[in-house]
């Protein structure tokens, strides 16, 4: 039995709608990103109309959204594309008021089979002014039909358990639930940044946040095998993959840091080790960023979280980066909130996997929390920093991480 309707997706744009003359650029990027994100599900016609985007399967895969599970997967994928406030699965059909009522009833049955709802309301929009009934009349008619079929329901216009939306345009549409989007701006509209990615909770969230402002990402990870295990590297790849669901493909640069770390350990004072290490990391990241056309560094630092994240320590590490800003989107964010974002983007469970690292051997028991310029001059006296940076940049292996990569 073929259905009397086709399922399509309606997505709503957020901030982009407020843009001025360059709005078109943002919209085109958003549509490109949607097309790229949905590639694995087949071809879709993606049409923008005012602040909304209609996503309809093409004839090569007309039934892709008719399977509920797949439809929900595609819907989720749509909401992961930055620039959208929400998206809904929508039934598209033709016909008169009877047809509208019939579909609204089917949708209600569908909703009630999964939820124990008691109250509802109907909202409608009439874009096709040739349609004989006005919006309030459509609402009343559909509401009445639902009440007759489901006498156990009642109407509540203020706080209904569910809403049936009816739209009359060239075609007719009914839908109910809206899945919230991740908002922000389309990736690709704000240049490219180099994320310092570790295996922890913060840096993937920092990357996600910058991507939500339209930034494309590359990432660098400092690998100290055998002090950190191969599993720690696998974990970082997994985290990059999770972030790439939102940000698109990430080039992950893995810097072989073992010898550099040993050199630092042997030739600089214990209590400054974290700082000297981070300064070298920043310099390597900056050089790589310039090479790759990235215009900023991104870290997951949060003020006061650990010894290296005091204002003095941040200043001392920050000053080595001369050619670009260092963005720290989490600088004023509470750890709990960071964890919440991490959970929401699906990274938390991976971030807390136990093979963090065995680098603890390189962590001083009492690191300097308020380092001064003279301390760092002293600490780096015996180090050949340019040589270490060169060694770091040369010892990089790059992986292309996509959300579908194995």
């Amino acid at each position, binding site marked *: 039995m073929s259905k009397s309707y086709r399922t399509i997706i309606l997505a709503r744009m957020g901030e982009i709608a407020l843009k001025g003359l360059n709005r078109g650029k943002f919209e085109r990027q958003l549509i490109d990103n949607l097309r790229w994100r949905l590639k694995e599900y087949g071809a879709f016609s993606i049409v923008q109309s005012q602040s909304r985007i209609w996503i309809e399967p093409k004839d090569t895969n007309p039934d892709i959204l008719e399977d509920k599970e797949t439809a929900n997967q595609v819907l989720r994928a749509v909401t992961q594309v930055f620039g959208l406030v929400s998206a809904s699965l929508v039934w598209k059909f033709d016909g008169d008021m009877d047809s509208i009522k019939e579909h609204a009833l089917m949708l209600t049955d569908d909703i009630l089979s999964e939820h124990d709802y008691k109250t509802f309301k109907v909202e409608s929009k009439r874009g096709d002014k040739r349609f004989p009934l006005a919006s309030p009349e459509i609402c009343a008619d559909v509401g009445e039909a639902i009440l007759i079929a489901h006498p156990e329901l009642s109407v509540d216009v203020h706080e209904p358990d569910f809403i049936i939306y009816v739209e009359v345009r060239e075609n007719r549409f009914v839908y109910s639930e809206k899945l919230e989007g991740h908002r922000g701006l389309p990736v690709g509209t704000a240049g490219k940044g180099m994320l310092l990615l570790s295996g922890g909770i913060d840096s993937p969230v920092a990357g996600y946040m910058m991507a939500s402002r339209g930034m494309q990402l590359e990432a660098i990870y400092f690998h100290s*095998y*055998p*002090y950190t*295990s*191969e599993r720690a590297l696998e974990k970082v790849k997994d985290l990059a993959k999770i972030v790439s669901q939102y940000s698109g493909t990430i080039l992950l640069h893995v810097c072989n840091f073992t010898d550099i770390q*040993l050199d630092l*350990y*042997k030739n600089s004072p214990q209590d400054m080790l974290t700082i000297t290490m981070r300064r070298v990391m920043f310099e390597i990241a900056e050089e790589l960023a310039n090479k790759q056309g990235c215009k900023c560094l991104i870290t997951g630092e949060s003020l006061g979280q650990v010894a290296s994240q005091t204002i003095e320590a941040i200043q001392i590490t920050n000053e080595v980066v001369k050619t670009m800003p260092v963005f720290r989107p989490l600088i004023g964010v509470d750890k709990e909130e960071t964890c919440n974002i991490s959970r929401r983007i699906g990274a938390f469970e991976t971030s807390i996997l*136990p*093979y*963090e*690292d*065995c*680098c*603890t*051997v*390189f*962590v001083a028991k009492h690191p300097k929390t308020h380092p001064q310029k003279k301390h760092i001059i002293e600490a780096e006296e015996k180090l050949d920093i340019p040589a270490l940076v060169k060694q770091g940049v040369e010892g990089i292996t790059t992986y292309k991480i996509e959300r579908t990569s194995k």
Partner: protein
Amino acid sequence: MSIYLDNSATTKPLPEVARLVYETLSGDETFGNPGSLHRLGVLAEKDLNDSLDKISKLLSCKKEELYFTSCGSESVNTSILGYMHQNPRAGKKVISTRTEHKASLESLEKLAKEGYEICYIPVKSDGKPDLDALSDAIDENTALLTFTHVNNETGSILPLQEIIEIRNKKNRNTKIHLDCVQSLGKLPISLSRMGIDMASFSGHKIHALKGFGLLYIKSGVRVAPLILGGGQQRGMRSGTQSPYLASAFALALEKALEDIDGNLLRMTGLRDRFSADLIDLGAQILSPADALPYVLNVSFPSFQSETMLHCLEEKEIFVSTVSACSSKTKKVSYVLTEMGIRREIASNAVRFSFSRFNTKEELDQTVKSIKEIYERYKV
């Protein structure tokens, strides 16, 4: 060529075993269900019986006393839980130590939750249970003793004879379960003469295959089954038996026992030499001096366990650690801490575990590699 020194975790199947499995599984008439009435079933059943015959002879017990399971853990679980559940009048107390394998400890925890009394007697610095404490602990209410024959982390050998004597003196009705997963094929095991009532074994630790365990229950000892179903193996362990896993086990066991004394002697020599070399490098041996020579637990100063593991891995040498590295909580082997070894030392512990196929050259190469690791990575 890589050097595999993690034989307590698992072993490489013998080439003979691999061949036998391939031939059995690719044959047109050798894949049957031993429960089927047709010829294929009869062939499979005969195959299974042949393996049982062979294994029971090699372990000196009756074939009616043996059951095939899926792994060592299943055998241990069945023994501990099954015996206690089946014999409520034997008493409510079980005696063990805290250095057992998790398969035992988790079973005991389950019993504790059900209201049984679990008495953990301390172990001494050599990893052996304190026999005075054992003697004090055994009473009228003690239904079961469960111990590991050879500890998987340190190679410490259980003083079985003394334990049997204490049991006989204190309460003859107390049964003994012995976890022989690590000792099989390395120490002589003669079930009918050892004075034990139940024993557990595993296939993949003796160069047979994963997915196969063996359970010994002495005639007359009643144990409730863990797995219910079609009533195979006299109702003790339902589920279709696997003739090829059983014959792989029988073959591997036969090979392991061929020169068990010679192997033990040779391995003792290799181990002694190896540990002397490691001590020269500044390492501390954590295994007791009289441990089974197939296991050597070593602590390397200034190398956390996992770092040393990865350093060795980089040189294609595979070992094991139970102390996982994490910057926040450091998990240290409970076996070592129970023996009174300090946390700082235990957190640097690495386990080398050998098979009879390891050579002097391999151990010399390992020592050489550790020297190189010290030079390059010591901080």
